């Protein structure tokens, strides 16, 4: 009560209060409006058939079955490549490289720069390197590998932070018990660094799954069901882009596809935070 009084008595404080709350409300309202719009227009079109059937008439009718398959495959390739490389590099940076060493500083700086590079640049690089130089052509493999390049900087840096957040006392007490570095790493540090890894994963996958520019040049936009990783495959985000920009009368299906994309993003976020609080806790306690 006293606080409310003093706030209303001091106009400057009141203004600050209004600004902070106002901007928070604005952000939340924008998100809700966006979500509401998508759900309103999209929900009635989403059905089991929509999720499984192939698109017809350039996507105006039919579903998104092959597109979901391509998206999952691209994401799968991306994760299969970026997770091991990401964790490995993070371990190298956090546990085996001193903060001051030239190698460590250079690597961190390059990663930070790469994390801010626009995705179209990754797309062009992927097209030149994976599609042309390596001869993978427009394919799910090229797309997944390009996404991996894009996701890696975020993944490495945030996993590295995860390792750095592990108290030094773990390392000392483990060493004092004669545990080898590998054991310490696998059984103590890695489980403790998983929260950082998850944050990186959510940010990275979030960026990957919503990616359009980097995929147009690499995985292409063929909307048939892919038969192998070397087939071109259309990602969900490209499908949405195509429907809303190039296909007149594709709005309804664009909304429905967007709704599916948003649900996927929310599901990934939810799983990660669930893992961070419950699944992970169990793992750390029982290893």
């Amino acid at each position: 009560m006293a606080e409310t009084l003093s706030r209303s008595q001091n106009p400057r404080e009141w203004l600050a209060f209004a600004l902070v709350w106002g901007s928070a409300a604005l952000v939340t309202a924008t998100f809700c409006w966006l979500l509401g719009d998508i759900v309103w227009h999209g929900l009635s079109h989403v059905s089991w058939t929509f999720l499984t059937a192939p698109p017809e008439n350039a996507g105006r009718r039919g579903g998104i079955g092959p597109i979901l398959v391509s998206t999952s495959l691209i994401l799968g390739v991306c994760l299969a490549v970026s997770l091991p490389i990401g964790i490995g590099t993070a371990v190298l940076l956090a546990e085996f490289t001193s903060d001051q060493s030239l190698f460590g500083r250079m690597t961190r700086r390059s990663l930070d720069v790469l994390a801010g590079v626009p995705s179209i640049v990754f797309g062009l690089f992927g097209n030149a390197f994976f599609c042309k130089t390596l001869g993978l052509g427009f394919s799910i493999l090229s797309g997944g590998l390009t996404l991996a390049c894009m996701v890696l900087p975020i993944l490495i840096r945030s996993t590295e932070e995860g390792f750095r957040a592990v108290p030094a006392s773990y390392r000392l007490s483990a060493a004092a018990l004669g545990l080898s570095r590998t054991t310490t790493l696998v059984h103590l540090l890695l489980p403790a660094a998983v929260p950082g890894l998850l944050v990186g994963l959510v940010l990275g996958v979030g960026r990957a799954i919503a990616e359009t520019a980097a995929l147009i040049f690499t995985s292409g936009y063929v909307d048939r069901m892919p038969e192998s990783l070397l087939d071109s495959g259309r990602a969900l985000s490209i499908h949405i882009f195509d429907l809303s920009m190039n296909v007149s009368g594709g709005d309804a299906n664009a909304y429905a596809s967007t709704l599916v994309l948003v649900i996927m993003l929310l599901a990934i976020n939810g799983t990660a935070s669930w893992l961070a609080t419950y699944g992970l806790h169990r793992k750390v306690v029982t290893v």
Partner: protein
Amino acid sequence: MTPVEPITGPRVRHPLEERPACPASQPIVEVDRLSLYYGGKPAFQDVTLSINKGCITALVGPSGCGKTSFLTCLNRLTDLIAGCRVSGRITIDALDVLAPGINVIQLRRRIGMIFQKPNPFPLTIRRNLEFPLREHGLRGREQIARIIETTLRDVGLWDEVKDRLDSPALALSGGQQQRLCIARALALLPEVLLMDEPCSALDPLSSGVVEDLIVGLRERYTVLIVTHNLAQARRIADYAALFWVQNGAGRLIETGAAKQIFEEPRDPLTAAYVSGMRG
């Protein structure tokens, strides 16, 4: 060896006379002109000291005089600190500790260490003890279970935790965590135990329990304990060594039987420190 009971009544003191005698001076650790530098800056210099087998040796002295650093040389934990350089010579049972090629893992199994802040791993109580044992090659389930029970009894924790061995170690109280850490070190059958102010992060009651436990380790283990608590050093130590900062680096001022150090100190600094006038 009777387990230390969780205390309920007044604590049984061990006056100097009643202590189980530690064997007549038979050095197990010999430190010769040891110096340690952090990035060129000396933490302590020129320490020569021998530590007798089966006895409790207390290292005392003001903060920053290099006591913790001294302990970490003995189990080569200094290897983990970038820019740390150690010179001099340490032998433990004829093993040249500072020789580049020695098996550090084996060394650290033989030299246990307890830290100021209890630091159990974020695992269950059982896994905290089992994990290092397995790492050192022990596989038999029954054997491991037996060692877990014995060491937990040794530190007086068995009756307190036997029904919840699979609950997280971090849920224990501070004193219990510290005793678990001691049990974890004892499970590896070390010859020497390094203890860095093991009671200073604990409440007085738990501190008393841990202190009694340390006294119970005499004879079976060689204990080198850093303590800020002079009364504690007086109560438990057979030998004592005083460190002091001189000219920007820690030095060993005086070492000898605890009784002599505390009652007839030779060095005026020691006299001032043990009488509470300095430090």
